[in-house]
């Protein structure tokens, strides 16, 4: 679906989510945005009943490589996703009302031994989404594109921007 110009939406405040970070918003008239996912995954949660939204930008699949070290939970999918979900529930959301969308995981050209973060992230998300029984309604992952995503907290729509291509909505 192509995006259309919406003057009201264009004036909505924007919360920026950095790499290895997550943010939530309980304010309906808000965008949550994260830039240049690369092989990272951008995960959005949205409760359309209460207009509560959240976004995670995770770089790596698992924190287990860094056991015993001080870690940033949002850096990893296996620590970041539970953290984001807990934040939404603390803000008043109910798990059964939360829809999840996932973006990113771009992959370099095929190699057997190097630079496979994109596919590892997608595998880990797939596993976690089953274990945590997430209601995943959109997958925009893999491929050779760098995605920037913007969650409209009013509607739950996610606007995807790819270099040299028009924006589209998921």
């Amino acid at each position, binding site marked *: 679906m192509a995006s259309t110009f919406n003057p009201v939406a264009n004036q909505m405040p924007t919360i920026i989510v*950095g*790499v290895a970070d997550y943010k939530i918003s309980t304010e309906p008239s808000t965008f949550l945005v994260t*830039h240049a996912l690369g*092989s990272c995954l951008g995960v959005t949660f949205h409760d359309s009943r209460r207009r509560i939204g959240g976004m995670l930008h995770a770089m790596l699949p698992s924190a287990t*490589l860094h056991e015993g070290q001080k870690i940033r939970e949002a850096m990893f999918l296996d620590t970041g996703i539970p953290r984001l979900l807990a934040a939404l529930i603390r803000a008043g959301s109910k798990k059964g009302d939360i829809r999840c969308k996932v973006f990113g995981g771009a992959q*370099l050209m095929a*190699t057997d031994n*190097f*630079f496979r973060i994109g596919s590892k992230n997608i595998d880990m998300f797939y596993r976690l989404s089953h274990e945590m029984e997430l209601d995943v309604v959109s997958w925009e992952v893999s491929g050779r594109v760098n995605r920037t995503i913007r969650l409209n907290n009013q509607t739950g729509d996610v606007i995807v921007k790819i270099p*040299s291509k028009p924006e589209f909505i998921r």
Partner: protein
Amino acid sequence: MKSAADLQTVVEMTRSIPCAPAILPKLLKLAEGSSSDLGEMEMLINLDTGLATDVLRTANSAYFASNQRCENISDAILRLGSKVLYRIAASTLTGRWLVHPVRGYGWEPGDLCRHSLCVAICAETFATKMQLADASTAYTAGLIHDLGKFALAYANFSALDDITNRVPDEFATWREAEKVILGFESTQVTKALLENWGFPSTFVSVGQYYQTPSECPEAERKIVTLIHAAKHVATQIGYGVGVDGFYYEPDEAALKEAGFKEEEMDAAIPEILSTIQRYISPSGEIRFT
């Protein structure tokens, strides 16, 4: 445009871009030299008001400041030391050039600068961990590795759109498309620019071979492979990656020969990211010093 003459045209066109990092090789030489060169270094830095301001600001920053304020470049050089000073110069001079607004590769303003800075930080980190090259040299090599693409975008070649439209349906890799559609590769432009500015041969080799390190003569293959690895890790991290970013083939043979291991590279990413985030804000704003 589709001949060797066009390669020369691109290189010539970049001569008119202000703030080219042409004084970097001179500074690099001085940074490697003895303390007697400090006077010459001061003179070079003073020639560039923006650079002199950055140097003074860093010398007086919370990290370096002592009780006494640095009022001039001479004091700042003594306080920072030639290595730190060179790093500031490399970032300031290259960054200023790379943020010049250009069209091409689907870049947003500043994207090439963000990506090059990430490559530089990855290269510096791996150079230190694996002792493949001097860390400052690796950092600079990361900053300058793709100057040829900047020059191509500055020349505003319509052929770049043609490449964008024909990869991946007609060409599997960006290099392949460049060779057929442009008649040359962006790495050849980088090589020509660095040679014109008098960069040492190490940097010229990085510019020429970083996409295909196995083809590099053995003497400089280690640093070239280092930049190859850094480039791909930075691409996965994502900052500033254009439409071409994921269409390059990793050179597994060179990576293995240099001793790279995937798990060690992945394990270094949290540290690399923390460093990157000191220089690039969540909104993408770049701050070099």
